[in-house]
């Protein structure tokens, strides 16, 4: 299987019905890696479903579901190594889990508990973990693209063997930071993978209203960079294309733009009402015909690698794992109010010390009165 930029065709490994679309031997991976992929797909979906319940219970202020985009996230994170860096966006929890994020920490993050490595500082979907090289996603759409490129520039300057991956949506490509980041990446030949999850919507705005090109991938032309269009619901194809780009970047052959064409099932976020803008039947079609999890299971079954027993076993195992993680998250306390002043700077400034004392006094007064 040859992986080339700008072919005008979507790179695909398996058909919607699960049949191989190309000769898969060249991918050089076997059943173990397939099972790993499938496990991550199912696991991501399970974690996402569980997270969303928390919002419906009113226990989180916001949540952006990842359902429908599992193949994009899992397939692109699996080729990474521990030393690599990851910048996600508000919808990349699948990638973060694959990179090593603890599920309990993720749930604690949604709940704003102390176990959250970011200590409840941000709304759900903005978790980070220094030890895993996962930078906490920003809320401002697109502004981390330049950062990710900066990290990749540092990786090159320091002569490391690392690469950086940066996730963003189709909408983000309209922001100036996309342009600036792409240009910097290309000018400095930085080992950066710019990974666009094109789920065809930025909240309510469809890609046709977002930009005047058919694809995102072709935008790479403007930067002298390679652009790849891949079927984002085909975990094998996403894996293969990302691995290709990661390997090239690691070798010093520079950055790449990857567009994973996919679809989100949920509303934009828990605050959205997607019935206002989604054409009738579209969501149902994607769920029914193109679901990334089902598609890969069909593939495994077509290869006689999977059956109902294995499926039941996997689901049970994941269910238990998710429940245990949630339990751990629940047990974690909420952050202590006075910690609101920590980490503005490395040390408390005189002003912050004073404000901290004031708040402590207020709290004491409140406790009394």
């Amino acid at each position: 299987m040859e992986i080339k930029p700008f072919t005008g065709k979507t790179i695909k490994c398996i058909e919607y019905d699960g049949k191989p679309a190309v000769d898969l031997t060249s991918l050089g991976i076997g059943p173990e890696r397939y099972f790993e992929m499938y496990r991550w797909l199912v696991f991501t979906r399970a974690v996402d479903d569980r997270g969303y319940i928390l919002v419906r219970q009113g226990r989180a202020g916001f949540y952006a579901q990842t359902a429908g985009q599992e193949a994009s996230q899992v397939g692109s994170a699996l080729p990474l190594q521990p030393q690599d860096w990851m910048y996600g966006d508000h919808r990349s929890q699948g990638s973060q889990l694959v990179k090593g994020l603890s599920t309990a920490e993720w749930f604690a993050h949604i709940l704003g508990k102390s176990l959250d490595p970011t200590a409840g500082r941000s709304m759900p979907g903005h978790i980070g973990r220094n030890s895993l090289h996962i930078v906490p996603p920003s809320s401002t759409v697109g502004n981390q693209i330049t950062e990710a490129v900066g990290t990749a520039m540092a990786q090159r300057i320091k002569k490391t063997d690392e690469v950086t991956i940066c996730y963003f949506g189709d909408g983000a490509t309209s922001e100036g930071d996309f342009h600036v980041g792409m240009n910097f990446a290309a000018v400095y030949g930085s080992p950066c993978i710019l990974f666009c999850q094109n789920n065809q919507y930025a909240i309510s705005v469809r890609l046709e209203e977002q930009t005047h090109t058919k694809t995102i991938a072709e935008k790479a032309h403007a930067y002298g960079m390679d652009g790849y269009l891949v079927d984002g619901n085909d975990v094998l194809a996403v894996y293969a294309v990302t691995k290709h780009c990661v390997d090239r970047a690691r070798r010093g052959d520079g950055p790449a733009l990857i567009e994973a064409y996919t679809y989100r099932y949920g509303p934009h976020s828990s605050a959205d009402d997607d019935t206002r803008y989604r054409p009738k039947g579209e969501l149902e079609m994607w769920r029914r015909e193109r679901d990334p999890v089902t598609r890969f299971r069909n593939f495994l079954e077509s290869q006689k690698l999977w059956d109902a027993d294995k499926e039941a076993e996997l689901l049970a195992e994941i269910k238990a794992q998710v429940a245990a993680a949630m339990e751990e998250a629940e047990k974690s306390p909420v952050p202590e109010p006075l910690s609101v002043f920590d980490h503005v700077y490395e040390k408390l400034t005189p002003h912050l010390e004073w404000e901290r004392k004031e708040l402590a006094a207020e709290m004491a007064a409140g406790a009394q009165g």
Partner: protein
Amino acid sequence: MAVEVKKQTQFTMVQALRSALFEEMERDENVVCLGEDIGPRGGVFLVTEGLIDRFGKDRVIDTPLAEAGIIGAALGMALRGLKPVAEIQFIDFLYPGFDNLVSEVAKMRYRSAGQFGASMVVRSPYGGGVRGGGYHSQSPEAYYVATPGLKVVVPSNPYDAKGLLISSIRDPDPVVFMEPKKIYRAVKSELPEGPYEVPLGKAAVSRAGKHVSVITFGAMVPVAWEAADKMKADGVEVEVVDMRTLQPYDTDAIMQTVAKTGHVVVLQEAPRIGGYGGEIAAFVAEQAIEYIEGPIMRVAGHDTPFPYALEKAYMPTSDRVCRAIKKTLNF
């Protein structure tokens, strides 16, 4: 989609704003709206709901995801005779268009020596109390107040919201119109039928009192009222001044209330340091020091980024206001 602005007397702030847009667009075909998701989606807070059905895609423009484009294009439209009302989805996300706003929109009249004006409005929800975390909660008025050429308007109730928005649209100068999202739907008010103006540059004595002045605006006005209610028990009568227009601001109103009470508490959601409250305090300390009988207190958000889980510890409370009132009175 039914437009819910007609024949209605009780309005939330969202509805009041929507009716201002609706009526101004009816009145003047040069008024256009632009922003992210303002079309069929009706805006994420539904302020523009129904507008596209009435006025079509040329006047209710769903834009690509780029604030620099929204603000830059709005200015270009204004120069060519339209009256753009740009929506920034959350004011925290204005910054990709910050240069366009402070370098171009604010200064076009000045640097063209009055040849070109920038009659346009940038509307945006601001402020905390909605579990929005660091980027859906901020109160960045200090940046815009510190930018000569911009006007900055913040309503605190549905009546003012409609009248101030109409005045802003009709104003020849660019207005940053900050909408307190926490109280978007907190109360309903009776509104007169049809358009009306609430003048820019005029504060309102939101509640009369004689012992101490709480000077504030936007979503902190209800907090000031709560504090005033609490202080009443101690026999303290609090005057609440609602600035409404932060820039250019109503210096007369400040002088009057200070002359009356001699004690000032300024109240804002934003961090204290470098905030708008400092401007008011400094104005009083320069122009009205002879009336002052106690420290000029500032009650504000903490000097930290806006937190998520600890939002309650962050936001100014009426108790915090009461403590400040007591401090200046017991000086």
